[in-house]
């Protein structure tokens, strides 16, 4: 019985490989990516700071507590939740776009590996985990939930950002 299972694994794997290699990849962008709206521009500060407004609970509180419009406050919260999910999905789509961007001049020699590849991979994985977690929390509890833990104990990002900026600055200086 176990032999048959292993034989089935072997055959299924070969069929899968042949299927994947024969099926040409379409040149159209990924459907999952095109369905989601992209962030207008990653460099657009206003779009990024939109999150401040979306995730700020003061408007809903003001409606509910000061103006005593609980239904309106609830409607606002529902709308903000929808906006928050769209904002996070757009951020995710933009991130995917950055990740899938091929290098301008891919190095032919394998030894020409740029410094910090592991750090970049860590950043990518960290982002994917965090954004998935955030989306889950927002979908389940809404954008004003406080159960999102602080990740300040992760020491990496600030240091890596500094080192990347320093490297980019050094490169730009050397090119001038």
């Amino acid at each position, binding site marked *: 019985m*176990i032999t048959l299972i292993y034989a089935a694994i072997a055959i299924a794997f070969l069929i899968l490989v*042949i299927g994947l290699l024969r099926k040409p*990849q379409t040149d159209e962008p990924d459907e999952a990516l095109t369905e989601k709206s992209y962030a207008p521009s990653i460099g657009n500060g206003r779009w990024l700071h939109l999150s401040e407004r979306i995730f700020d609970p003061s408007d809903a509180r003001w409606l509910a507590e000061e103006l005593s419009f609980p239904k309106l406050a609830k409607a606002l919260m529902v709308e903000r939740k929808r906006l928050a999910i769209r904002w996070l999905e757009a951020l995710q789509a933009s*991130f995917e*776009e950055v990740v899938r961007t091929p*290098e301008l001049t891919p190095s032919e020699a394998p030894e020409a590996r740029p410094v910090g590849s592991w750090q970049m991979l860590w950043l990518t994985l960290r*982002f994917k985990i965090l954004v998935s977690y955030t989306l889950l929390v927002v979908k389940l509890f809404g954008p004003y939930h406080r159960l999102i833990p602080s990740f300040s104990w992760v020491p990496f990002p600030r240091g890596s950002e500094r080192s990347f900026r320093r490297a*980019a600055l050094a490169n730009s200086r050397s090119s001038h």
Partner: protein
Amino acid sequence: MGERGACGACPSPAGYMHIFGMVISYGAWLLEGLLILRGAATRVFRVFPLFYSYIVYIFCCSLGMYLIYWLRPQAYPSAYWIYYLVSILVEFTVLVEMSDQIFRPFPAIRNLGRALTIVISIALGLVYILPAILGSTHRRPALLDFALRACVTKVVILAVLFYAARHYGSKLGRNVAGLMFGFSIYLAMNIAWLAAGKAFDPALSSNILWVMAPLAFALCLLVWTVSLWELAPMPSLRPISTATGRDSEAVALELTRLDSELSKLLHR
């Protein structure tokens, strides 16, 4: 790569089966030599250094094993098993080479393939391969089981690499696709004959293994030789939205920017 199969220490079959197995083994050895010569002539070895070091290792070890087989046959079984077990581990370099090639154009996930290979190898090594060695009392079943489970682990890694390559839109060139296809044939055949070897009577399975093991590797080498005959450039990657390619520092800066933006949100 076990050209003589896991039955190296077992009595080899007599007559035509023995000759057939030996002929395939010599054929595989010649293909290894051809692959090395061609790699040196076209300088493909510069692009695939890990893969060619593996082929050189296999070529030299096969030669050494033939010499032991003809000159000191009594030492052959022990030498064979050492070579066979080391080869199973060395085969992981082929996977590392493939994983490096698949994600090379993408600076943000350049090491993703290598990370996947290492993580899956360690995880399955601890929970799937190691118990096979520790739990068995006899040498032959233990070695067959170890080889089988190592092959299944490699199949899992290859499947994950295939999926990741498609997910990130990495177009495999002829060289890398050939490497992956050849290795897939080899692993699938190995799983089939190792599973059969475990189930059948040792005498019967020895006859099958004597031929099947070198045949699997010879087929794999044939695919590798054809696909690596000359250096094929990587196909151009599809343009994604406005992205037209950028250097790795720019990608790193954008990654950190998006990452810190999300972190700010989480700190609230």
